[in-house]
């Protein structure tokens, strides 16, 4: 959950790890990691990444994401 967990060496590396964590979270790329983690916890076999992303695409198709002026 926390940014840069495990990378406690140089402050620069910590900042970079934080930026990477943030960008992956913001773009939703980390959703796959969360899913794998959840499957492992619940003892389920995860679907492939392709199937997973396809599923997310299909869901996005039904929703509207508003964008402002």
């Amino acid at each position: 959950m926390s940014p840069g967990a495990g990378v406690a060496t140089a402050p620069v590396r910590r900042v970079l790890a934080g930026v990477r964590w943030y960008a992956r979270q913001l773009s939703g790329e980390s959703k796959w990691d969360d899913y794998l983690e959840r499957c492992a916890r619940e003892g389920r076999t995860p679907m492939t990444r392709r199937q997973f992303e396809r599923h997310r695409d299909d869901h996005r198709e039904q929703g509207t994401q508003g964008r402002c002026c």
Partner: protein
Amino acid sequence: MTTDTSARPSGGASPDAPRTRMSPLQMAVWGGIAVVGAISWAMLALSRGEDVSALWILFAALASYVIAYRFYSKFIAGRVLRLDDRRATPAERLADGTDFEVTDRRVLYGHHFAAIAGAGPLVGPVLAAQMGYLPGTIWIIVGVIFAGAVQDMVVMFFSMRRDAKSLGQMIREEIGTVGGIAALIAVYAIMIILLAVLALVVVNAMAESPWSVFSIGLTIPIALFMGFYLRYLRPGRVMEVTGIGVVLLLLAIIGGGWVDGSGLAEPLTLSPETLTIALVVYGFVASILPVWMLLTPRDYLSTFMKIGVIVLLAVGLILAAPVLQTQAVTDFAVEGTGPVFAGKLFPFLFITIACGALSGFHALISSGTTPKMLAKESHVRMVGYGGMLMESFVAISALIAACVIDQGLYFAMNSPAGVTGGTVEGASEFVSTLGFTITPDQLAAASASVEEELVSRTGGAPTLAFGISLIFSEAFGGGLSAFWYHFAIMFEALFILTAVDAGTRVGRFMLQDTIGNVWPKFGDTSWKPAAWGASAITVGAWGYMLYVGVTDPLGGINQLFPLFGIANQLLAAIALTLAVTLFCKHGWWKYVWVPAVPLAWDLVVTLTASYQKVFSDNPAIGYFAQADRYRAAREAGDVLAPATDLDQMGTVITNSTVNGILQASFALLVLVIVANAAVIWVRAARAGVLPTTEVDATPSEIVAPKDFIATKEEKAAVAEWERERVRS
């Protein structure tokens, strides 16, 4: 270390908890910030006729934002709304892994900011710079603190307490059916105007500019490439493909420079009319294509560009430390005769700078979308209030960029072609009648520096791009003015095209949903004829308004921008009316002024502006007076400048009449909603309190820090909670 569950600092903070005292160090820091803010404001307000650094605007803004966030938003969170972290949020209660999902507060802040900020806060302040730097600065900062950020935060709170319902649903349930229907129509109509005006800004920036057409046009294949890459080549690798996309974008900008001097320049020199058709076709296709192909990848690009450019602009401003070229307050503010848009400071400044100070559109994001992802109630303060402060900062940066441009050049760029004749000589002559001087040679030199014609490039985007190019060239070394100019144009166009894609889709869903009430089949979003039909209606509506703007001999921006600004502020009035209604129904009479004061101000501003736009007998302001003037002239067989023939006379008459009717309808719809709400206010005042649709409290299990930076205690509590969760 063990933490008692009932006394967890983050999970169990009750609204009644005793207030913590500030330490002497904290007092010194806040005192220091207050002093910096006060000095900056004094420099801005008291300097007359000497060089004023733009950094004073920046510091005045930043100091005011931090103080407002620390004190006013905390007051609203604790005393007024009584945010309660013991209550579970919709994201926790209704978690479904897709829409409703507990999200890290900092990530949600980014999502919310990306959703609310677009081209609006970049355009309005640039146009408002015709009144000087001071009025715009004051309104952007004071407006956001007491109106804009309050609206976003309060609407987000009420939606969060109602299972993340949308603004429209809340109005129907809390105010009444009449208000609900009026709100539905108003939101759709206002969205159409918004899309038309944003599209007009892009068209004006791309017209007759092969460089812009090339680089902005290439964003479509770049987005398509990203879409296919994510779908088939490497699913899910968003960061990787966004990196590739950004590199391709930069190459597209550089490539545009080559195209500009090559044989491709001529076929890519497009008229505004051609671009209008292209944009309408694009908007229709984009809204019916699967979202993974175009919309999603474009969204990644624009989100990361948005954040990157804003950081770059802040750094650039500090490095360049430019001097303001504008007067504090120009004569146009008092006389209302400015060429960029007509009308006096009151009320027209407050509708020109809409986004950045108070934006009704945010209420659509603050209800529905964002509340589904809030982890804790306390995050409403950070995401709602804090997110809007960031948007306001974008507006301040845009205002600075417009105010560091030479005034002669500013007016040469922003006066309609009807008065400048579109030539450097004509522009130089016209600008001198305004009391500014710029020679044709100086204008030509400015054009050459960015390799783009600059006379009468209205719409705000070219002006902002020129200002950004000045600042970046100064900050990061020279020789790249033309690159930075087109970089800034691309940046704005990217926002706007994303808004056009997404807005058309939202409009399509709204229309399908509404018509679906009478004809259920039409509401099925997967039924192609309905999807295509609703898309076509939406695109047709904004496309028509765009065409009206493009062909208007009087200049589309100065005709349509007031309509857009008033529409946006009327939507804010609708959102604030809902907020006041809910305060009354909850019986929070002591604090009802928190949304009521901005509502009263907003109604005074927008209804005055609407009244003037409809009833003013000054043809420069009143739409109908304008139509009458041209009609009378046509009947007498005269052709009035800037129209050049009878056809153009007809265009002016039709356009002004359409604009006037739209203007009047918007104001009427808002009056209907306010009248309906007033009935509820009276009823609530008699009863003291009325039942609302707020859902009952459910205890929250989640532990998370409250604010941007977690305290030591909060970190410990989160760690403890995560250990517990793993164990169970």
